[in-house]
């Protein structure tokens, strides 16, 4: 829907409805549970982590963390540190509720707790459940418990892959079905939801909002030591960061100075903008895990209509349990496609058009985040509820890419990042 007034009203209505639905559902199950003296279970998870980066011209970040080790500071406690608490309430085998709050370094530079789960879980049968409220996207192996690093092999999920599925907090309805296909236990997730989150701006304070509606489908299969997963998400997303607005607004303006190129630039701006733009995310995951060995790999591909480029990414991790320690090695890579559109703003006519054309080049270039990393790490159980993880990551960024870093200095050059190292030491725990 391209009409701005209608879009703003829909966005406002939907976001309020999402919040009111979550609070309404939670209030409902609290009231019902009190009335029926239901069982409660309180639990939590967290990470205390320190990361240090040798590169000084940009910050290493993941998810929506606004800054991190690198240019902002040599070492950072906020990259992975978090604390989550959860309450589960059950009325019967067929009706349960869950509410989870997680505090971590957010895009607005705060640690304000965020609702990361809030839903009613309704058992339709022994094998089918319906969830209403806030869930987390299950397309990837670890995406629906992305913050629970205790249950993951590394200090953090490889950002090359997990950065593709940024909108992982979803408000809507999800159907979950389990079955047996031959010797394989299968699990299907199908959901319709709305998601929105803030993205920090680079080198300045403030955030930009991403929002979208998504339909997703995941097929998971398990047998013995094997776990396989196929995921697909599709929908429409809107995102207009300040940097793109500064380029697209002039293009849309149909300035008389553009002459006959005005309508051409207007159409070009509509191609570039990410306004209810369609996206598709495909993923394939496989894990083989025994008490001794861990081999896990995932591949994901995303298309998004607009100034962003198509993205592909993969990782492969191999780990082996040696007494108390489990060393692991991970190779991860992300590569960006070519720009979806050709720059229609000509150069060489006048300085204003040259500047606008360079702005368009920079905008389309910002979608190139190609990089690869090799991570060597080791983890060790400290006790029954906590795990120590130590890892060193060597990051290499393509010459024409910005990688996945932020807050870059004028001296930043993607191709210069070849042997920079990120050291991380984290303790993950549950209670």
């Amino acid at each position, binding site marked *: 829907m391209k009409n701005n007034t209608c879009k703003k009203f829909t966005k406002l209505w939907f976001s309020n409805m999402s919040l009111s639905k979550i609070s309404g559902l939670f209030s409902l199950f609290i009231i019902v549970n009190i009335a029926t003296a239901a069982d409660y279970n309180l639990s939590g*998870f967290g990470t205390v982590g320190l990361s240090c980066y040798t590169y000084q011209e940009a910050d290493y970040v993941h998810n929506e963390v606004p800054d991190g080790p690198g240019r902002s500071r040599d070492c950072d406690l906020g990259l992975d540190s978090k604390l989550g608490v*959860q309450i589960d309430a059950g009325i019967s085998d067929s009706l349960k509720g869950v509410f989870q709050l997680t505090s971590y370094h957010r895009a607005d530079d705060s640690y304000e707790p965020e609702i990361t*789960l809030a839903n009613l879980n309704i058992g339709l049968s022994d094998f089918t459940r319906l969830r209403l409220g806030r869930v987390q996207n299950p397309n990837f192996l670890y995406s629906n418990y992305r913050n*629970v690093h*205790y249950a993951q092999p590394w200090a953090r999920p490889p950002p090359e892959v997990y950065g593709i599925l940024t909108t992982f907090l979803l408000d809507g309805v999800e159907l979950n079905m389990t079955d047996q296909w031959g010797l394989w*236990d299968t699990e299907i997730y199908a959901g319709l939801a709305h998601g929105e989150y803030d993205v920090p701006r680079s080198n300045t304070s403030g955030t930009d909002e991403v929002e979208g509606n998504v339909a997703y489908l995941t097929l998971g299969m398990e047998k013995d030591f094997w776990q396989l997963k196929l995921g697909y998400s599709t929908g429409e997303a809107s995102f207009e960061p300040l940097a793109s607005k500064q380029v697209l607004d002039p293009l849309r303006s149909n300035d008389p100075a553009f002459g006959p190129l005005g309508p051409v630039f207007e159409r070009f701006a509509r191609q570039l903008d990410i306004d209810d733009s369609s996206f598709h995310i495909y993923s394939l995951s496989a894990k083989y895990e025994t008490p001794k060995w861990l081999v896990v790999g995932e591949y994901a591909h995303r298309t998004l209509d607009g100034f962003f480029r198509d993205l592909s990414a993969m990782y492969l991790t191999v780990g082996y349990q040696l007494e108390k320690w489990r060393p692991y090695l991970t190779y991860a890579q992300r590569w960006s496609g070519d720009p979806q559109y050709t720059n229609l703003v000509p150069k060489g006519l006048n300085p204003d058009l040259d500047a606008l054309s360079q702005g368009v080049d920079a905008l389309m270039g910002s979608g190139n985040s190609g990089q690869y990393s090799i991570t060597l790490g080791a983890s060790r159980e400290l006790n029954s509820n906590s795990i120590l993880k130590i890892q060193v990551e060597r990051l290499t960024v393509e010459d024409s890419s910005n990688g996945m870093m932020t807050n870059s200095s004028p001296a930043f050059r993607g191709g210069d990042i070849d042997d920079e190292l990120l050291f991380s030491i984290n303790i993950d725990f549950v209670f």
Partner: protein
Amino acid sequence: MNDNSNYKTAFSMLLTSGLILLSMLLSNDAYSAEPIDAHGFVVVHIDNQASLSRDEIRKIFLGKQKSFDNGLNAKPFLLDGNEEVIRHFKQGVILESNRQMKAYWAKRVFTGKGVSPDTVSTDQLIQKLNEIPGAIGYLGADVQLNDSLRIVDSF
């Protein structure tokens, strides 16, 4: 960066891991489910005459199966205290290490799919098995079992 070299690197990693995986599959890596001497027994209430395969026991303790074939709701309990028995149960029956099982239940709990079974001592477990018709647990081979309990598996 040369795209071809990256693809070659990625392919090499995949090929290497595939060879490692093949060697693992050809070797006897899986923990044996047939011990010479039993370390312990999986036990239910004497009135619970349901037939149980090893796979069904595993699924009950992983929260994937909620009831026995006789309709009784399954209520699993984990044992606290005897590390040797616990380790043999988890590796022999559940086919997971203690770490894997902790990670598994953390995943289930924090995705809102359930809570992990209660962990109780040997004496508490025997009491639960006597009182709750659908209770299922595991005890060390050195524990004296009375006539109110029924063994459904050994490990």
